[in-house]
């Protein structure tokens, strides 16, 4: 029987297997950030342990960093201490670090691929659930907790048990104005936030093949929102073209050798999956979430659902609680929902392609008068620089957006960028949990183009008919 891509990645990294199937799995790359690493470094110090392979790690501060007036440093003393602790730890343990004033600084899941530090066939971990992003490159990538961060630092291995392989096939031509974000939300809407639990999801099908690497990263990024351990996409020409000449990617003869190996990173035609889902995307509309879980999502043409129609009592109660928190009445048309804040950014949607799509919606227009704040936060310093070279910063600024420095920003509101209680946000991030973007804040997840159009209109619009 043929192997799945997940099988291939797993098998090539097993150092030792225990009788019960638990494996010592070798980790090729660890990405490190300031929030989930201090206790891991402290643990190493407490046990007088060093790093097994310092060069396999790459660190960058992203969660806590300010996105304005970088030169002033970090005002909040607890955030500052955390970022300084990362810098000191990286120095003490010889971990490569992109400091806050480095142009390469940015969100760890944008930086890794951009640098070519994410390569096909690797196992990649980071103390952050959105590590699933890197699966877009045919790498086995997943988020881990701090104990595991410490373990990878000390041993370059993790203790893992193989999960099931699930395939989500997205077939058909992706309609205009429908993006990878809409595909991701539609998948989660279909299978639920626990639909991928106990599985690695391979995204396949003609719609996935047609996506750019940016789009594939968006899709894999949200695999965790479907409960999956990892998201995966097979390697093809798009993958290889993206990686050519990236600073951390191999060069010369080694590149040719690597490409040859990478070409085998796909599921065999006769591979069997433990779960399969098929979605025809050819009539998919832009998606908008209405609740406090990413599975509470509907097409922009839809209406806020009525809890009375929900048969399952626990789900009904969850929907009632969500609509109360979101202050939405059942039956409200999604396009009638007015917003206060717009956030374009995050590891889901802050790459150049995302910023281009958003800029395309606002060029020559103005942010609606009642919008409190509209932020564009590029995913990295290099994304920012590339966007500026194309004049996107001017497009956003002239429309009334703030053009910020790179970081996680309002996706999780650990820095100063956050929603005030009751504010409603069109956000290109990945989680609409209660309080995620600030206590009492209300999040609607959308694509960059949808968020940008909502900023101009002041409410959600069906961008397919809007222009």
């Amino acid at each position, binding site marked *: 029987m043929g192997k799945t891509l997940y099988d291939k990645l797993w098998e090539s990294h097993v150092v030792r297997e225990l009788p019960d199937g638990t494996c010592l799995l070798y980790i090729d790359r660890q990405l490190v950030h300031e929030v989930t690493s201090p206790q891991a470094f402290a643990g190493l110090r407490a046990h007088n342990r060093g790093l097994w392979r310092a060069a396999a790690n790459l660190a960058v501060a992203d969660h806590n960093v300010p996105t304005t007036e970088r030169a002033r440093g970090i005002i909040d003393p607890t955030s500052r201490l*955390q970022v300084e602790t990362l810098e000191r730890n990286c120095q003490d343990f010889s971990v490569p670090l992109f400091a806050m004033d480095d142009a390469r600084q940015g969100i760890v899941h944008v930086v890794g691929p951009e640098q070519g530090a994410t*390569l096909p066939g690797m196992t990649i971990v980071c103390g952050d659930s959105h590590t699933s992003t890197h699966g877009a490159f045919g790498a086995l990538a997943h988020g881990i907790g701090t104990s595991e961060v410490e*373990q990878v630092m000390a041993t370059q291995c993790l203790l893992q048990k193989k999960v099931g392989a699930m395939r989500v096939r997205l077939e058909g031509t992706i309609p205009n104005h429908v993006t990878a974000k809409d595909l991701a939300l539609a998948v989660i809407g279909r299978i639920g*936030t626990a639909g991928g*639990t106990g599985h690695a999801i391979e995204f396949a099908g003609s719609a996935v093949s047609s996506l750019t690497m940016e789009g594939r990263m968006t899709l894999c990024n949200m695999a965790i929102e479907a409960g999956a351990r990892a998201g995966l996409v097979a390697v093809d020409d798009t993958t290889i073209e993206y990686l050519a000449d990236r600073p951390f990617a191999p060069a010369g003869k080694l590149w040719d050798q690597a490409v040859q190996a990478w070409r085998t990173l796909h599921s065999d035609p006769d591979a069997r999956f433990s779960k399969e889902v098929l979605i025809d995307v050819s009539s998919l509309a832009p998606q908008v979430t209405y609740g406090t879980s990413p599975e509470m999502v509907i097409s922009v043409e839809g209406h806020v659902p009525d809890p009375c129609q929900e048969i399952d009592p626990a789900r009904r109660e969850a929907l009632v609680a969500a609509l109360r928190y979101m202050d939405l009445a059942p039956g409200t048309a999604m396009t009638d929902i007015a917003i206060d804040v717009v956030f374009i950014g995050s590891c889901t949607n802050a790459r150049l392609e995302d910023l281009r799509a958003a800029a395309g919606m606002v060029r020559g227009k103005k942010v609606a008068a009642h919008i409190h704040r509209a932020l564009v936060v590029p995913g990295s310093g290099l994304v920012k620089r590339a966007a500026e070279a194309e004049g996107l910063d001017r497009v956003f600024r002239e429309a009334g957006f703030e053009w910020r420095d790179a970081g996680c920003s309002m996706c999780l509101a650990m820095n100063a960028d956050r929603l005030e209680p009751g504010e409603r946000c069109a956000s290109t991030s990945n989680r609409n949990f209660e309080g995620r973007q600030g206590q009492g804040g209300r999040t609607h997840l959308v694509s960059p183009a949808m968020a940008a159009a909502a900023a101009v209109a002041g409410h959600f619009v069906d961008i397919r008919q809007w222009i």
Partner: protein
Amino acid sequence: MQRFETLTGLVAPLDRLNVDTDAIIPKQYLKAISRAGFGVNLFDNWRYLDQGEPGQKRARVPNPDFVLNQPRYQGASILLARANFGCGSSREHAPWALLEYGFRAIIAPSFADIFYHNSLKNGLLPVVLPAPEVDRLFRVVEKTIGYSVTIDLRHQRVVAEGQEIGTFDINPFRKDCLLGGLDDIGWTLQYQADIKAYEERRRQEAPWLFPEARTKQ
């Protein structure tokens, strides 16, 4: 890691689906650089009426409607929860907060993957029972003040009032670690020679994965 063998404790019910790790411990508390101090901020947004900030000195305003604030659930060491508990962010601060508050086990019909593993690595036992049994437990717990159960890890069973009410699965390796209070790093380092041999083999197959070795040569 604290050992886990048998636990008899008061059960507190948290009747919500998809409880995410942002709800378990909100992000403003993740700025800490130590492992301690998270218990007081467990479920912060639900537990208190005022907005919390790390390191604040003034007394908090408890939310009397939040279940863990009810006098009958004080001292609970077992949390009864709904499906997909611990979804969202990978923050290990979530099990740290639950443990420091006093929970040693969580019973739910399902858990999010990363949270499940983070819990096991910290001596917090996630127990999966079938959804109908969890439903029944929610009803009994709400009806019965002081309702407690015993979780027997060695025999992988849950006992209430002398009756077995369910059995649960656990990876045998993880079970041994919990029973012995063993940590993963010490265990893994027994296999240093295997790791080095793997690296040697891999370096031949895929030398681009070891760029630092090239510069050394």
